């Protein structure tokens, strides 16, 4: 089979660049990118300032590098918490029967239906002063688990119906062992996929909240940069690069993550059905 340049290869390359740019290059910043007036203001992109500078006198290139790192880290933190909750509830929901099953299904579906954003906006407007990355991740995670846990539940359900569960139960396997030896191999792929899934969603939510001005941290995220840009009327004043580069980075991040996720889906989910 001839090796073709497929979308997923492009996605992995882009994602690799993103990781390098955010986690490695950010360490080499010659100055603290968040501090104001380190460089001349409102400079368009040039060789000296590849992404231009902001109205606050910040070098956008180094600023974005740091902010991207923070955006990703925040999403990873959120995703970790969310995946744990999703796994827990999803496995329980898939395993129990009868009334308990109905109850679990109901709870999960409710959290899917309830619109998360307005409530998060409310919450964040209240706790605006006492934010920390952990708290942000926690609150976003609270709303992130519903859809992934539906998916976990359906996989566990189909696993449960398969022969080996009955055999194992009849031969005295406890629930924990059952999970560990029989389910976990299937669930591993599930974990990875749910993780990426929540990550993409979390990036979106965090960016949205930041643009609404609800996230006020010293450590900037890409959403926060856009917020400042909008606050300082960057677009009417033609300082387009201040909005353009964070937006571009976000697009690249989300799309590359999603293509990787799709590839995982093809491997694990469609592979499972064979």
């Amino acid at each position, binding site marked *: 089979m001839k090796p073709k340049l497929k*979308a997923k290869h492009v996605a992995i390359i882009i994602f690799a660049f993103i990781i390098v740019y955010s986690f490695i290059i950010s360490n080499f910043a010659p100055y603290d990118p968040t501090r104001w007036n380190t460089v001349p203001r409102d400079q368009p992109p040039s060789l000296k300032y590849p992404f231009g500078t902001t109205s606050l006198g910040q070098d956008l290139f180094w600023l974005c590098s740091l902010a991207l790192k923070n955006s990703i880290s925040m999403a990873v933190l959120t995703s970790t918490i969310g995946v744990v909750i999703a796994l827990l509830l999803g496995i329980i929901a898939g395993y129990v029967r009868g009334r308990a099953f109905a109850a679990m299904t*109901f*709870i999960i*579906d*409710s959290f*899917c*239906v*309830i*619109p*998360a*954003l*307005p*409530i998060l*906006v*409310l*919450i964040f*407007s*209240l*706790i605006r002063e*006492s934010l920390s990355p952990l708290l942000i991740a926690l609150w976003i995670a609270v709303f992130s688990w519903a859809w992934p846990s539906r998916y976990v539940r359906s996989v566990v359900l189909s696993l449960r119906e398969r022969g080996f569960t009955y055999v194992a139960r009849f031969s005295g396997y406890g629930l924990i062992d059952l999970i560990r030896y029989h389910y976990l191999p299937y669930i591993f792929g599930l974990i990875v996929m749910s993780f990426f899934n929540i990550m*993409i969603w979390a*990036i*979106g*939510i965090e*960016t*949205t909240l930041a*643009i*609404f*001005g*609800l996230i006020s941290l010293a450590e900037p995220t890409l*959403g926060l940069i*856009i917020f400042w840009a909008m606050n300082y009327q960057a*677009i009417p004043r033609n300082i*387009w690069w201040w*909005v*353009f580069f964070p*937006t571009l980075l*976000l*697009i690249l991040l*989300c*799309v590359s*993550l*999603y*293509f990787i996720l*799709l590839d995982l889906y093809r491997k694990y989910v469609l592979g499972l*059905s064979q």
Partner: protein
Amino acid sequence: MPSHLGIRSSVKIVARNVLTWILRRLIVTILVVLIGLTLLFVATRISPRDPASELIGRITGYGGGLSGEELENMRRVVLQLYGLDKPIHEQYLDFLKGVLTWNFGPSLAFFPSQVQDIISRNIWWTILLMITTLVISWAAGILLGVLASYFERSRLSKAFLVLSSALYPLPYVILALVLFMIFSILIPIYKGVGGTGFVQPSLSWDFVLAVISRAWLPALSLIVLWIAMWFLTTYLLGLSLKREDYIFYAEVRGLSRGNIVLGYMGKNVLLPQITALILNLGNMFSGALVTEYMFSYPGLGYLMMLALQRADFNLLLGICSYSIVGVAVAGLILDTIYPLIDPRIRYGFKE
């Protein structure tokens, strides 16, 4: 000859099945609303500080120029609103009562206008936007998805797949920004951003044109993302549906492509996608709010922006409550369509 059929298609049976179904969904909807409101209530009580003084502090911080008397009014209202002197379960019940009687109290930013009045005025804009964009993108996405999944190998299908995959993961804010930058700056044809007064509704062409000129870009933003979403989910569903025996049998019978795509794949994709729609209403609604915010489209999203700017907590609470109830009710309405389409509900599940 013994009957293998057990068909009970009398009208009475059908009616009973349908009513049972609707009743069950109604109860579920009520419970969902309760859970949502409880969540909301918990959310309002999470701040460690006294929300009343905090609010007042924030309001005075924003727009100094309130006389001492007005401040006192506000303080009294806020205290009353939260009943902070009462035990927590009473507060909860009061909160629920408020929602059920559709009374959310006065808006803090537009004092003394009542929150429910403000929301009622603007909600029609949101409803208009959502219904048109939702119908268009759901229908188009499903149609394209079915076609693309049946004609899996065609280049057009693959192109759509890649395009949708690139659009779907984008956050609403980002797409809104991109579209705004394209159509306001690059090709300046979009006007209407900038929260000027709300156009007075009237049945005239002027009004309709005004609405369209205001709404087309946020609508486009939503349609693009939603078509991508529905295309992708339908496509994946269609791929697995294609392998069903009845598709094979339709093909060997020589049925036309059109019949197979629409009558077989299309129809069978519809049911799960209605369920998916109901479950996704919350997400889609949130997306609409965010998009309205970005374009200052005079719906709930815009109100949300104002509420945030002016620390109007009541308005925010009202918007959240409306959202929860609205989404649940919309879901219920869609639920009632189900029995019309799924014969298994009308005639009972057999075997």
